[in-house]
């Protein structure tokens, strides 16, 4: 019980410090600490799958994404287009936000006592999917449409980010040129960590069938393991005009839709798995989706191509 109070207080303290920080870099460093603490909070809420995702995406990829932006924006004095609100206005905004938080808190306190839950239904139908992990079962079978739409959203995000390429830069290698600092330690890490990370990612993907784990967490780790050598300047990202790159990013959702349509033909319902075939089909989708989303997440963090001035 004390641990929960301590954890909650620590998260709130880091969150407040993060938005009040003077320098953007400090705010992002605090945000990474916030991501780490949040994944511990998810463990206390006994949602281990979400803890894995929050650790991989919240603390890892989001932090590195914002750090990259801080580095590229640090070189120019950022002229604030609109001046910060005055003291009175800030207090007013503070009160309004406190009201929103209080209202949400009241909702939490007034939740219906026999908490409505779909757990029994999931438990009843899980054996049909042949999976042991209920969250993976929901993701891949009962709510497979959400997962399909989500992988499509990731694909769309890649298209949108690439569409921000300044003219003349189209087709080039994505992302700004990484400064080759000749940092010994970074090069060391960029050579040692990726192989380990790939083994961990495969382990988490495979274990995801019966225990917390799964494809999004594995994809985030794989993306991180590609970004590390890119940051160290060891690996030049492929040109976005490269056909195989576009194919890899698109193959995940395409395979998912194809299997969904096949289900519609044979079983009469989109995304329905023929009985007995659920497990192998889900496995195929998971593996293809992991590779596709890993590449997509990495490309999202790398960003659009930036032509040298």
């Amino acid at each position, binding site marked *: 019980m004390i641990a929960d109070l301590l954890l909650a207080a620590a998260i709130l303290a880091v969150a407040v410090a993060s938005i009040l920080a003077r320098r953007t870099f400090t705010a992002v460093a605090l945000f990474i600490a916030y991501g780490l603490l949040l994944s511990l909070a998810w463990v206390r809420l006994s949602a281990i799958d979400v*803890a894995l995702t929050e650790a991989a995406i919240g603390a890892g990829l989001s932090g590195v994404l914002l750090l990259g932006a801080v580095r590229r924006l640090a070189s120019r004095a950022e002229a604030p287009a609109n001046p910060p609100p005055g003291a009175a206005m800030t207090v007013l905004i503070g009160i309004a936000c406190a009201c929103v938080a209080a209202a949400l808190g009241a909702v939490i306190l007034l939740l219906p006592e026999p908490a409505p839950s779909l757990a029994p239904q999931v438990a009843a139908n899980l054996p049909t999917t042949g999976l042991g992990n209920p969250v993976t079962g929901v993701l891949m079978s009962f709510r497979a449409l959400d997962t399909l739409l989500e992988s499509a959203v990731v694909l769309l995000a890649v298209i949108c980010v690439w569409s921000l390429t300044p003219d003349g830069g189209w087709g080039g290698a994505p992302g700004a040129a990484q400064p080759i600092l000749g940092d010994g330690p970074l090069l060391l890490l960029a050579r040692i960590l990726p192989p380990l990370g790939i083994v961990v990612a495969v382990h988490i993907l495979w274990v995801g069938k019966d225990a917390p784990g799964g494809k999004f967490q594995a994809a985030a780790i794989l993306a991180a393991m590609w970004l590390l050598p890119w940051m160290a300047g060891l690996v030049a990202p492929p040109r976005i005009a490269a056909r195989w790159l576009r194919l890899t990013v698109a193959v995940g959702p395409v395979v998912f839709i194809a299997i969904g349509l096949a289900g519609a033909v044979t079983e009469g319902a989109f995304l329905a798995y023929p009985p007995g075939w659920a497990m192998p089909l889900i496995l195929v989708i998971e593996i293809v989706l992991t590779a596709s989303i890993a590449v997509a997440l990495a490309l999202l963090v790398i960003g659009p191509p930036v032509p040298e001035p």
Partner: protein
Amino acid sequence: MAEFLLVAALLVFATVVAGLLRVLRGPAVADRIMAAQLLGTGGIAALLLLGAATAAPALADVALTLALLAAFASVAMARTAPRQEKGGEPRE
């Protein structure tokens, strides 16, 4: 035995949260990075102890992911940190 591990997990977490003050207060940029890394390591240790106490092997996977990603984030932070001027606050 399990209670001992739970108490140990709580203690490790409490010390690491105390270390968090360095993140909030640390004048130099390097202090914040170090404190964030300590937070990562402490979180991993607390998770391992909690996992051993409640016999939940899945927590070791979370600790493994945290170890990988905390390393990744720490390196990114160390690389992006503004250079330290002569003793003063580094410019924005």
